[in-house]
């Protein structure tokens, strides 16, 4: 086999320590080397031209390059080989600079070591295969799951760049949690007002034609990989034509049935045809089939439809569940988070005592479109004389969630500020484990709460020190042995935890969850908008508890990644260093399926053997090492190549 060795002197870096002639002499006896060329700087323009010329002139079958670390210039030389018409995988680099010349004082020892290393490479490179890069055409459309601030921002960014967006939202409205908040920390901006321009862009803006919004829907199936995902989406019927409805609400009044409204923490009731809340977008109600008598009793009630000023056909009782199929090149998960279940804390009385509320329920009490039209009242309809906020319910707690949720302090201090206006006489208590308000704006509400003469602050060590019990006219909170705090209303600030459907989505997509159940980012500091799975990106609180600032920033970042790396019509080159199963040898034991960190090895039930998906495979070779029958070949790192290298370096 015609095998050339190219020895780079790297100026004096290598030449001063390793005598090329001595190496050449030691290798000549071996007989596997067809020629040995030295070059002053192989990576320089002259060096690369020399290499290209020499390869063209001598047409070697394999080459070995002894130079710097392959981490530095392997790809440089592979490109030269391609230019010279040679397959770039028919080369092995030997690191004689970083790992020999620079760490050895004795030139004789350095030359011996270099000769042995090159000998290993000669053994190995003879077995190298001319691997071919596969190319894959990319679909430009993007699926975004979740239409909260993160998903909306990503959708708007992608649509503006001309990308087709499929925005799937499980609820009837968009905007996520903040559209329920009339005032937001840190500067009391109105949530719906702030998000309305963005939501308007999505629904009716200049680039809205690029966005397909699918509400009341969830993703049921995902197959494929970066550049080519096949997605199945199940959409529940709304029973109202969202495009023709003008959102006047005339249909609500005649509806004969109602039930507690979960959107307002079940503090009021809602008809079978209703908005999620007033002002929600898209501005069209929906029928709850679990409540409407047409679906529950099979009645022929048409009260809502009859009241519609737009005439017949706007309310559509014959609307059906739909299964939609879409093809996309990338997916953004922006499914948000939810709050920790406070009923786990028996001592805090949530769910047992009517005036113990979560921060989210309290938020609805404050809202003008909420159950009390913005009046802060107890379950008896009275203005509370005292309100206690219990911070860190579940956060910074080893028995529950060890992390700080990062937003609850600001929410509680926002409430403090709003109560100064709404109930100027009320006493406010903050019971906290830690107070955390980072950022250039985070301090203001905290400072204001501290300066409020009717606010008190008490730090507890463990939530177990607190117990909330019914007392005359409200509740009392016992704090340790001695302290007793009267509170007509107790508001709990729960930890932010992963959404209920995170696990199911993770399994469907094969993306990983972190130990808390949030979607796991590719890297905690550098790549938070990327999941560990190529082509799937993360935005907002589904990755980590987030405020709106962080969520929208991450949504934009995810869109940016997609715009730069998932481009329609372009092909994605796949490095051929992946594993492959020899179906003849495979016994179907599936050990490889379980060790693959990227779910790239799957079992083919029909054939009874495992197979590697070359797109998902990243070429670590763990499956090849685990296979008891040696039925898996790790391209470019085969058993034979590594053993030949071992034999070579041992001389």
């Amino acid at each position, binding site marked *: 086999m015609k095998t050339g060795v190219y020895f780079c002197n790297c100026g004096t870096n290598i030449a001063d320590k390793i005598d090329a002639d001595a190496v050449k002499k030691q290798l000549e006896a071996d007989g596997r080397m067809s020629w040995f060329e030295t070059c002053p700087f192989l990576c320089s323009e002259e060096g690369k031209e020399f290499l290209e010329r020499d390869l063209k002139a001598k047409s070697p079958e394999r080459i070995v390059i002894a130079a710097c670390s392959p981490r530095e210039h392997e790809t440089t030389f592979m490109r030269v080989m391609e230019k010279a018409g040679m397959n770039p995988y028919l080369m092995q680099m030997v690191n004689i600079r970083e790992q020999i010349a620079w*760490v050895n004082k004795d030139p004789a020892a350095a030359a011996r070591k270099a000769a042995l*290393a090159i000998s290993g490479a000669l053994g190995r490179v003879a077995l190298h295969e001319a691997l071919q890069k596969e190319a894959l055409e990319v679909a430009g459309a993007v699926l975004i799951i979740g239409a909260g601030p993160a998903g909306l921002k990503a959708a708007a960014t992608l649509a503006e760049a001309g990308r087709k967006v499929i925005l799937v939202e499980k609820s009837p409205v968009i905007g996520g949690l903040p559209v329920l908040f009339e005032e937001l920390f840190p500067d009391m901006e109105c949530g719906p007002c702030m998000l309305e321009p963005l939501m308007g862009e999505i629904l009716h803006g200049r680039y809205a034609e690029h966005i397909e919004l699918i509400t009341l829907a969830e993703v049921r199936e995902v197959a494929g990989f970066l550049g080519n995902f096949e997605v199945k989406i199940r959409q529940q019927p709304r029973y109202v034509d969202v495009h023709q409805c003008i959102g006047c609400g005339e249909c609500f009044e005649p509806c004969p049935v109602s039930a507690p409204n979960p959107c307002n923490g079940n503090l009021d009731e809602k008809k079978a045809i209703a908005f999620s809340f007033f002002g929600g977008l898209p501005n069209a109600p929906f029928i709850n089939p679990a409540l409407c008598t047409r679906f529950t009793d099979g009645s022929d009630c048409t009260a809502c439809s009859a009241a519609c000023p737009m005439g017949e056909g706007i309310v559509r009782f014959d609307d059906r569940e739909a299964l939609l199929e879409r093809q996309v090149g990338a997916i953004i998960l922006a499914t948000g988070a939810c709050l920790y279940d406070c009923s786990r804390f028996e001592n805090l009385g949530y769910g047992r005592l009517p005036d113990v509320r979560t921060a989210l329920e309290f938020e609805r009490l404050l809202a003008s479109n909420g159950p009390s039209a913005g009046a802060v009242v107890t379950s008896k309809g009275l203005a509370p004389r005292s309100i206690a906020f219990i911070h860190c319910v579940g956060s910074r707690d080893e028995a529950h969630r060890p992390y700080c949720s990062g937003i609850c302090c600001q929410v509680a201090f926002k409430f403090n500020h709003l109560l100064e206006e709404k109930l100027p006489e009320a006493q406010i208590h903050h019971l906290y484990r830690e107070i955390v308000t980072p950022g250039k704006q985070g301090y203001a509400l905290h400072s204001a709460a501290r300066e409020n003469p009717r606010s008190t602050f008490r730090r507890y060590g463990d939530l177990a020190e607190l117990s909330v019990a019914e007392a005359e006219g409200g509740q009392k909170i016992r704090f340790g042995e001695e302290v007793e705090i009267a509170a007509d209303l107790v508001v709990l600030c729960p930890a932010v935890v992963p959404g209920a459907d995170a696990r199911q989505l993770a399994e469907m997509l094969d993306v990983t969850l972190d130990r808390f159940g949030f979607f796991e980012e590719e890297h905690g500091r550098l790549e938070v908008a990327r999941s560990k799975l190529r082509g799937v990106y993360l935005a907002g609180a589904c990755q980590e508890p987030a405020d709106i600032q962080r969520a929208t920033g991450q949504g934009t970042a995810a869109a940016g990644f997609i715009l730069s790396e998932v481009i329609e019509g372009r092909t994605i080159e796949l490095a051929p260093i992946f594993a492959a199963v020899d179906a003849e040898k495979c016994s179907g034991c599936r050990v490889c399926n379980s060790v693959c960190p990227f779910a790239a090895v799957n079992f083919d039930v029909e054939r009874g053997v495992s197979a590697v998906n070359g797109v998902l495979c990243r070429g670590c070779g763990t499956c090849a090492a685990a296979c008891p029958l040696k039925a898996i070949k790790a391209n470019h790192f085969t058993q034979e190549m590594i053993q030949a290298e071992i034999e070579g370096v041992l001389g």
Partner: protein
Amino acid sequence: MKNTANNSPTGTEIAFPGEFEPRIVGFLCNWCSYAGADKAGMSQIPYPPNVQILRVMCTGRIEPQFILKAFERGADGVLVLACHPGDCHYKEGNLRAAQRQAMLSRVLEQMGIARQRCRFDYVSAGEGEKFARIVTEMVAGVKQCGPLKP
């Protein structure tokens, strides 16, 4: 089993006269420990020349047979260096390697190969000094063991 290189195909003389110079094969992963070895080079930290480095993409690729093969072909020691737990480029290949190592070290003991002849450790891309220290310790340890007899 050979423990000097006098009859090697390259004709190289490895053993220095008078002193036993062990031959050690080091399996290093591309992303952390190989980069750590490069870092030792960039920092020009000298260490003994006895370790021949083989690069794999991940220590998860290392089959126990590779290590046995190295001993069979005359290595006096084998070094396996992985990314630190949690830093693996492939999430958990280093942990697979650690599991295999735990199993293999029992087998090696049963074969009469002393524990210090096969070392598993973690070296990050920044730990050039640690890499040089591990090599130095390894070479000294294997020298104490002497040549590996068949």
